C-alpha cells in the first residue's frame, strides 16, 4: 500500500484536477438542463390544465341545449348572465396564470443557483482534500530578480545569484510547458549551446537551488525531476510572477 501510494497521488494530482472539472461542468450542464426541462414541463402541464375562458360558456351552452324546458325569455337571459360572470372570472384566471408563470421563472432561477452552488461546494471540497493531501499548495511564486528573492505563498526566501537564475529559467520553461534537461539549463544560463554543456553542471545548479530552498520538500513541491527528461517546476503556470 505505501509503495503504491506515491504513484497514485501523482496520477491523481495530474489527471483528477482536469477530470473533476470536466465532470463538474458536465454535471452542472446536465443539472441545469434537467431543471429547465422539468420546470418547462410543469409549466406546460399547468397551463394546459387551467380552464380556458370558454369553459364557462361551453357549460352554460350545454345546460341550455340539454334542458328542453329552458325556453322562457327570463331563463335564457339568466343563462346569458351566468356565462358572462363566468367569463369575468376567467379573466382573473389569466392573472393567476401570469403569477404562476412568474413563480416558475423564480423557481427556475433559484434551482439553477442551487445546482451551481452545490457543484461549487463539491469542487471546493475536492480541492480542499487535495490541498490537505499535498500539504502545501503553491498559490503564488513571485521571482524578484533584482532583489534576489523569491516569494512562495508570500514566504520570502533570499537566494544566491546562481540560484535565482536557475529558478527563473525553470519558471520560464514552465510557462512554455517545457521540461529542461541539466545541459539545457546550463546552456540557457551560460549562453552556450546545449551540446557544449555538461549535464552534471545543470544538475549541480538544480542541487544548489534545492539546497538553498530546503531540499526534500522543495524537490517534491517545486523543482521536480522528470525521469530521463529533465527538470520542471511542479506548479500551475498561472501562479508564476516575474518581477
Amino acid at each position, binding site marked *: 500500500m505505501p509503495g503504491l501510494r506515491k504513484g497514485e497521488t501523482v496520477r491523481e494530482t495530474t489527471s483528477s484536477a482536469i477530470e473533476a472539472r470536466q465532470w463538474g461542468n458536465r454535471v452542472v450542464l446536465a443539472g441545469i438542463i434537467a431543471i429547465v426541462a422539468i420546470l418547462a414541463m410543469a409549466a406546460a402541464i399547468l397551463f394546459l390544465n387551467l380552464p380556458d375562458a370558454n369553459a364557462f*360558456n361551453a357549460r*352554460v*351552452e350545454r345546460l*341550455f*341545449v340539454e334542458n*328542453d324546458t*329552458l*325556453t*322562457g*325569455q327570463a331563463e*335564457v337571459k339568466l*343563462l*346569458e348572465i351566468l*356565462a*358572462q360572470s363566468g*367569463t369575468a372570472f376567467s379573466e382573473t384566471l389569466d392573472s393567476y396564470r401570469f403569477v404562476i408563470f412568474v413563480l416558475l421563472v423564480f423557481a427556475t432561477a433559484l434551482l439553477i443557483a442551487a445546482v451551481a452552488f452545490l457543484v461549487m461546494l463539491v469542487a471546493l471540497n475536492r480541492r480542499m482534500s487535495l490541498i490537505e493531501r499535498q500539504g502545501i499548495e503553491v498559490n503564488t511564486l513571485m521571482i524578484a530578480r533584482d532583489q534576489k528573492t523569491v516569494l512562495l505563498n508570500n514566504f520570502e526566501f533570499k537566494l544566491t545569484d546562481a540560484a535565482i537564475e536557475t529558478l527563473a529559467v525553470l519558471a520560464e520553461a514552465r510557462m512554455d510547458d517545457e521540461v529542461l534537461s541539466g545541459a539545457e539549463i546550463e546552456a540557457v544560463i551560460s549562453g552556450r549551446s546545449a551540446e557544449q554543456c555538461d549535464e552534471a553542471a545543470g544538475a549541480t545548479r538544480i542541487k544548489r537551488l534545492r539546497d538553498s530552498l530546503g531540499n526534500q520538500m522543495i524537490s517534491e513541491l517545486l523543482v521536480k525531476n522528470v525521469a530521463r527528461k529533465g527538470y520542471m517546476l511542479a506548479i500551475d503556470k498561472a501562479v508564476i510572477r516575474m518581477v
Partner: protein
Amino acid sequence: MKHGLSLLLVGLLAASPAGAACYADYKAKRDDPLRLHYGVAELRGACTTENAANELLPRLAADDWQLLNILGVFEDAGLEERRDSAGDYFLRY
C-alpha cells in the same frame, strides 16, 4: 332559378296536403359574448325536424346565429303557447 322554383313548388305541394303551415322551435347561440335565444320559425319544406335543421341553419347563419338544436315541429295549434317564450324571435327567421 327554375330549380329553386320547382323546389318551392314541391315544398308547397308537400306541405299543402297537411292543410296547415308547419313551424319548428329551436335554440341558437352567438359567441363572444355568449348570447342565447329560443325561437319559433315557419318551415317552407317538409314538416320534419331534419328538414327544419337544414332550413334554419342558413337562415340563422345569415344573422350570425349558430343553430344549437331543434326542439320539435308543430302546426298552427302549437303556435300561440310558444309566443311568449320566443319573444323577439317569434317567427323572426
